[in-house]
Every structure is written in C-alpha cells, then in structure tokens.
C-alpha cells in the first residue's frame, strides 16, 4: 500500500490535502500494519481528519500479523465500527467520518483530535482532569461499551473541547454481559496487580464480564484524569502500587487541592476492587478545586479495613499558585489586566511591552477560553498594534473554536483571511 494507492482509494471530491504520516505512535505503525494520513474532509464544513488504513495480511503473513490484520479480524472490526457509528452521539468515541472495507484492507477516517498525551506533556491539561472524568464516564449516556486500552495516548480532544476515545479498534460492544476482546492489547503496568490478574483470568476464559470491564474502565479513565493534574505517570516496568504513586506525586505541588484530591483517591484505588462511579469522583474533584482547599472527608474509594494505610494529613491549605477555578475568577483577573488595557489605548506601551502584553493575554485567553473579552483584546493587539495578519488569523481561529456561535468573530475571521491573503500576495 503506497501513498498513490491511498489517493486512488479516497474520492478526490470527498477528501483533500491528503498527507501520509511517517511514524505515528502505536502497534500498527511500528509493525507496518497500517498506513496513516491526515486529510481534510470536504463534506461537513471541511473538517480535519485522521485516516488509518489497515492493510489486510497477505497469504504469507505470520501468526501475529494474521491475528491483528487478518481478513476475519478486519471484517469483525468493520462490523463493530459500523455499529459504533450508529451510536457515536451517545458514547465517547471519536466521530467516525468514513468506515470502508476494501479488498486490500480497512479504511477508517475519523475526526482529527489533539492527543491528551501531548497536552499533558506540555503541562496544559490541568483543567481537563474533571472533563476527562465527565466525558469518558462509562456510566453516562449510552451503556454497554468498553474500550480495552484507555490511556492518554488513546484519548483525544476534539476542536469543540470534548474528550473522546481514539484507537477505535479497541472499542467493543457488550454481548450477553461480556465483551469478546479479539486482540487484548493494553498497558497492564498502568493497573494495580489485582486488576491486571482479574482481567487476564477473564481474557483466558474468552472475554471479560461487565463488572470487571467497568472496574478496569473506571480505573483507567481516572488514572488518565489524574495525569492531567500530576503529569505523566513514570514508567517503571511494573504494576502501579503505592510506592509508584507516592514517587509520582512527590514532584507535584503538595498544596494544590487537585493534587491532594488525586493523591487520596489513587492511594485508595490501588487497594480496592470496588472503584466508585466517575460521576461522584468528578463532582468531588470540582468541588475541591472550586473551593480552593483540599477535599474534606474520606476518599470516595472505600478501601477494605485490612488494606487501609494512613493517608498523609495535608492540613487546610490554599495553593500558592492556585488553579484557575480556585481564584476568584475571570472578573478579578480581568480587573488586573485593565490598567494594561488603558495603557495600550493611551499609547504608553512600546513595541516590547506590547509583545509582552499580548503574551499575557494569550495565557489568559487559554485559561478562560470562553471569555470573548480576552480574545477580542488579543485580536485588537494583533490587528491594530502588531499588525500581524498571520497571528490575528491564528487568534481568531482559536477563539472560534471556543466560542463557535459568535457571528462577530466569524465575520472578523473572513476579513482577516482577506487581509492575510493580501499580505501573502504582496510578499509573493
């Protein structure tokens, strides 16, 4: 399968800007089992898409290749994905734009996402912790689904800021109270030993039942949500245990209420087989972060008495660098910016100060992405003071992603696009 083959396969009137990706992460790419590409889907307003073309195993393929990309598995995935396509409004799967079985393989086109892993690595995922819990809650919306490999690599953020699960071949639908997992590829080191054993035992018996699947899914989603606050979990090649969690949390801000919350919950979770519904976890996290103090009361995860180990008392603490929601909010922060707003208009800012002011605004806009005032001020600086068409276009595009119903921003984007084109033509 080559790039030309992919171009020939995709209708040119439906897909444009097809760019084959060299080496995305994952089992399929490492083994040359699939071809990956980015493209723009012409239909649906021109959305950016990610395309995965799984190449069917040839007649001389080895056993492993046959298990993963053999014709019968591709048929199985195709059938599952077509069923999931019908349910994609009620379950947290990345929107599937096209699923097509061809003689040579299986084409899966999905909406492009920003991987949560990348956001965590940039240290910008703090605010997504509760969102991960809410959007990926297996007990909300449509039930009866399971994703066998939930981790930040397989969670994506859509342009509308909704968290969804990617690696769609790992999605399964419940049948007779069980999930028949055809390729049990997951990351057992991210689970406590007891959970891994429970899963492996059931897999050996031909599939995992509803209760173990729910426990596994809740734990993996919660762990990904914790990584949003605590940063990537260190890989030490063994199952998650108390020592690993403590070492992981040691470098985090011990006064931060979200850190305190996750420390309590994770230390409890690794010692229990009764993980609580994610809705309760989310509500408690939001409450702790909003109040700006550590959560009170016992952790939601109820640990059997025999396994209970004392949680370090953290005392009542207010973070030195409080998270966004813990501060008194947008209005207070905006009030701090107002002197700069006036200084800008009074012409008291030089070129360097304007650049610094813009950088401050960019941070504020990212922290309060639904506040139109922040974006508007940023646009004003980019257009009228820095006179930078490319920057203005990037700002307005970002703003529209967060405030999609603002006609003014849309109109502004059209004007800036014309301006940017003129600049481009002028420079050509």
């Amino acid at each position, binding site marked *: 399968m080559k790039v030309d083959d992919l171009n020939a396969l995709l209708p040119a*009137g439906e897909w444009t800007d097809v760019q084959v990706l060299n080496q995305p992460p994952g089992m399929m790419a490492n083994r040359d089992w699939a071809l990956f590409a980015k493209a723009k889907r012409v239909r649906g307003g*021109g959305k950016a898409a990610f395309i995965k073309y799984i190449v069917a195993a040839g007649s001389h393929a080895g056993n492993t290749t046959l298990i993963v990309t053999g014709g019968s598995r591709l048929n199985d995935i195709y059938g599952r994905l077509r069923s999931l396509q019908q349910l994609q409004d009620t379950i947290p799967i990345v929107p599937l734009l096209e699923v097509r079985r061809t003689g040579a393989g299986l084409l899966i086109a999905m909406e492009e996402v920003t991987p949560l892993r990348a956001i965590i690595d940039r240290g910008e995922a703090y605010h997504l912790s509760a969102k991960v819990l809410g959007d990926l809650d297996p007990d909300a919306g449509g039930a009866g689904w399971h994703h066998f490999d939930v981790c930040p690599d397989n969670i994506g953020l859509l342009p509308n800021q909704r968290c969804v699960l990617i690696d769609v071949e790992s999605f399964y639908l419940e049948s007779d109270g069980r999930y028949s997992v055809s390729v049990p590829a997951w990351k057992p080191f991210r689970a406590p030993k007891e959970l891994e054993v429970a899963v492996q035992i059931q897999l050996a018996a031909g599939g995992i039942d509803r209760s173990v699947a729910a426990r596994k899914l809740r734990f993996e989603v919660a762990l990904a949500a914790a990584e949003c606050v605590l940063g990537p979990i260190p890989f030490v090649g063994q199952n998650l245990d108390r020592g690993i969690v403590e070492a992981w949390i040691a470098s985090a801000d011990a006064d931060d209420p979200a850190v305190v919350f996750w420390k309590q919950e994770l230390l409890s979770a690794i010692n229990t087989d009764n993980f609580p519904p994610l809705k309760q976890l989310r509500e408690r996290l939001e409450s702790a972060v909003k109040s700006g103090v550590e959560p009170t009361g016992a952790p939601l995860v109820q640990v059997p008495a025999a396994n209970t180990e004392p949680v370090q008392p953290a005392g009542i603490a207010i973070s030195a660098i409080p998270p966004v929601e813990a501060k008194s909010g947008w209005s207070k922060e905006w009030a701090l910016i107002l002197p700069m707003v006036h200084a800008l208009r009074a012409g008291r800012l030089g070129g360097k100060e304007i650049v610094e002011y813009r950088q401050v605004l960019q941070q504020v806009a990212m922290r309060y992405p639904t506040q*139109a005032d922040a974006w508007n001020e940023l646009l004003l600086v980019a257009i009228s003071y820095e006179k930078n068409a490319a920057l203005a276009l990037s700002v307005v595009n970002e703003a529209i992603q967060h405030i999609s119903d603002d006609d003014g921003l849309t109109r502004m984007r059209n004007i800036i696009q014309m301006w940017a084109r003129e600049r481009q033509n002028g420079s050509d």
Partner: protein
Amino acid sequence: MEATNIVGGHPQADVQLWGKGYRITADSEEFQRYVPKDPTQLRGLERNIQTTLWGGLLESLYPLREAEISAQRCVLFDSSDLLSVSFAKTEDRHRRPSLVLTTCIVGIDWRDPQLGETTARAVGLSSRLATTYAEALRVNPDNVGKQLRENSFLTSRSFDLGEENPDRTVEWVNAISAVKKWNGITGISTPRLLALGANVVLGTKYEAERAKQQFQVDGFFDTRDREIKTLSDRLMLWEPKPHTPAPSSGERPTHPPSPAASAQEKPAYQSSPELYWVAECLQNLTNSVDRLANVAIEILERMIPDKRRR
C-alpha cells in the same frame, strides 16, 4: 412548487463542478461539466446555465487574481430554487491558468424566514468547494481524471447545508429581504458574473450603470441602505396582501415578507464595539482596494493587450 429538500432540519444542496483539462461530458478538454456526469440529474436553474457562452465570461476572469475571483458572487433565483455560482483559479496540466466553477442548488420556500441564512450557507458552500476543488484539479492529476470518468469523484453530490459556515462577505439576510420585495429579479451578482443571468448588481450604482451597457441590469443592491434600487421599469414591487396564500407552482410570492420576519433574520454582531469599528475599517479598506484594483485592471486592459488571454 417543488418541495424544499430538507434532511434532519437542514436544507440539502446539490452541487455541480465544471472545469477544463479532462474529457468527461464533452469530447474535448475545453470547459465542461464534470459533476454530475449524467445530465438528467440536473434540475431547473442548473439546466439553464448549461447553455451559457463561457468564452467571454471566462476571459474576463482570467486576468483577475485568485482573491478577486474568489470574491465574485452570483445567486440566481426562480420560484422554487436558488443557485449559487462560484469560481476559483487553478492550473492545467501545462501549468497554464485555468478555472473551476462550482454551483450549489437549493430548494427554497420564499416564505421561509431563514432564507437569507440558507442563501449565505449555499454561497459559503459553493465558494468553499470552488477553492477546494481548484486545488484537487490543479495540474489535472490522472487519478482525479479517472475518478471523474468513473463517476467516483464524489459519493453523492448532495451536501448538508447545516454543516456549512455562512458566507459573510455579503449581508445575505438583508439582500434576500430586499429581493423578496421585488417582482422580476432573476438573480443578484457581482458585475463580472452578470453573464450568468442575474439582473441585480451586487455593487455600487456606478458599477451597475456601467454593467448595464453590456448586460440586462434592472437594479443594484445598495449596501448602505440595504435596499434594491431600480434602474429600469422591469422590476415592480410585489403587491402587499393582508393574508399569506402559498405561492402556486411556478409563481413567486405575491406579497413582501413581514417586517417582523426581516427583523428576525437580522444578524447580531456579538463582538465589542471597538472591534466592530476595526472590522468596518478593514472592510472599507478592502472594498476600496478592490475598486481601485478593478479600475486599474480595466485601464491596463485597454492600454496593454494581455497575450495570456484566450
């Protein structure tokens, strides 16, 4: 009246694609329809433009820059459909300048208070597709020609307008409110696309009067007053009636829309007043530059014959 094609609450639009460089519906590589391949799929206004004499129209577009071509607007009307036409610049297999045309036809109901928004979305779609397909057809790739010949370029020529961003370069809500008041309007268009059959100019009085020397122009849409000003007696105000009978087949509505309906369509500008001012300044600047560029091009065309023109 033909039923408006609505799926899931949003109108559907059927698209056409025209270009040159492939032999799809004609036994030459000259400008021809690529999609739909089957002429029996065409309806109403789509059929009308099949007989357009393209030579003069395309020649007038070749000297323009890409941005100028993309800024051209043309919407044709009849009793049950509207058709938006867009062009974009591309290159043939020898890297010579070439053009693609896309149209987008939508079944409409003239009593629909959302007609302005539907028009804006239809124009948005045809413009976006023209630009997109100009890239897809650039240098006439072989695989694209094969797909066009095998009719697999598009899985369906029907597009959901609900997913499209409305075109905001023209105040379509106001323009359509104005169109609804007059009997005799065949379409509304920027001057360069009047050859497609529109008789109301999207432009200034000066541009309309100049265009009238070449085309049948009966009025222009005054963007300042948001009204259509007539330049002939062929446009007549619809007679207002107290009640609202449904327009019969082949007829336009016999009454103007209620002011309330127009008010509902008015878009809300949600950004700050300061940015609104900046936006207006940019828009005015762009309009002025466009007008200056047009005048300059016309002067140059008269002084220096363009050898590239075909």
